[in-house]
């Protein structure tokens, strides 16, 4: 009975989706809004990557809110899991297995490369595919490898917290600078545009991108570490 109703629900949704797909004609040209963005981001902001330009400047307030959501998730997971006593982690009478020497050393060798790649992705946010969120995720995956391969490692929560808060404060500070020196909150024109397509260009976008990367990386690392207990 239950299975039948579940199947019915899924099939109904499937029929609706099939209708949507069947009636969808592929678009031949972009919408007016997208055309506006595609023309304005390279000229006005000097950023080759249109998506990053939209995310960090035109919808900068939204991105700030997104980072705030991540912060609240880190805090929420901390509240939910932080107060636990650690005795439940390992059952008595069973010693945890010794981590492999080779895996530990391999992680020590790959970790610097992963973090370097994370920095590269963060730095390239305004030039090509990449940016703060993606680079932060790469950094957090490095943290995950660290905790899997070397379980003895303790993350320095105080340092991560300070770094993350500092990045957030500077981010908001840049936003307020935009209010004072340029057209509005989080306007990236407080710095010169520079030469199109080079590392130091596109106004404040690379700075904001780097701050986002640091903040997201630190927050995701804290969240992952909370789950480890």
């Amino acid at each position, binding site marked *: 009975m239950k299975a039948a109703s579940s199947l019915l629900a899924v099939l109904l949704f499937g029929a609706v989706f099939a209708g949507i797909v069947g009636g969808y004609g592929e678009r031949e040209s972009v919408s007016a809004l997208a055309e506006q963005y595609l023309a304005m981001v390279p000229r006005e902001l000097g950023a080759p990557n249109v998506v990053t330009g939209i995310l960090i400047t035109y919808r900068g307030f939204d991105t700030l809110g997104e980072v705030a959501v991540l912060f609240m998730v880190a805090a929420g997971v901390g509240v939910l899991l932080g107060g636990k006593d650690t005795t439940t982690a390992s059952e008595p009478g069973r010693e945890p297995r010794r981590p*492999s*020497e*080779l895996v530990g*050393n*391999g992680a*020590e*060798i790959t*970790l*610097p*490369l992963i*973090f*370097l*790649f994370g*920095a*590269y992705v963060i*730095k390239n946010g305004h030039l090509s595919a990449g940016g703060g969120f993606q680079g932060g995720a790469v950094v957090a995956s490095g943290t995950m490898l660290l905790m899997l391969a070397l379980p003895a490692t303790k993350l320095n929560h105080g340092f991560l917290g300070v770094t993350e808060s500092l990045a957030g404060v500077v981010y908001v500070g840049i936003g307020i600078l935009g209010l004072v020196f340029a057209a509005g909150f989080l306007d990236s024109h407080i710095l010169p545009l520079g030469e199109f397509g*080079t*590392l*130091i260009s596109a106004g404040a976008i690379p700075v904001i991108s780097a701050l986002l990367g640091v903040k997201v990386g630190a927050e995701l690392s804290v969240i992952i570490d909370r789950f480890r207990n």
Partner: protein
Amino acid sequence: MNEQAPTDGKGIRGLPVLWLLLFILWLIVNASLATPILITGAVISFAIALIFARRSNVWHIAVTPRSAWHFLTYTSVFFTELVKANLNMLRYVYSPRIDIHPGIVRVRIRLKSPIGRLALSNSIALTPGSLVMDVRGETMFVHWLDVKTTDPDQATEMIVAPFEKHLEAVFG
């Protein structure tokens, strides 16, 4: 770099090698030699190297012309073994009946440095019919696809010896 330098000098020894490696990697992924990229690369790779060179002694490598030469010969030996391993594997995979006698044997290794042991075990894992299961001190447990001998010395001669003499010269 002076602050809180560990008393036994652990970590700082590996710093130049790691810094140089990361910096070269940075230049390769950026594919550019512009000044801003050079500066940010130097700063970022130094920061990462400073953090990770302190953590472990993996990066204690001395680069000399002799070790570079042995590294090249090691690479060539390694690639021939890799191709041989694959042809071997193809023979097993496409044969109508798989007739093998797998088993785990022990071999002895002389290498001391962590990175040398890692390179050795990776080489063993990629050469004909062998896979490292565990390392305990000087004994390495190797899963062998087709066991020819259970004697540690003979097994060492057959599995480990081709790589070990080059790796010993490179990493010590």
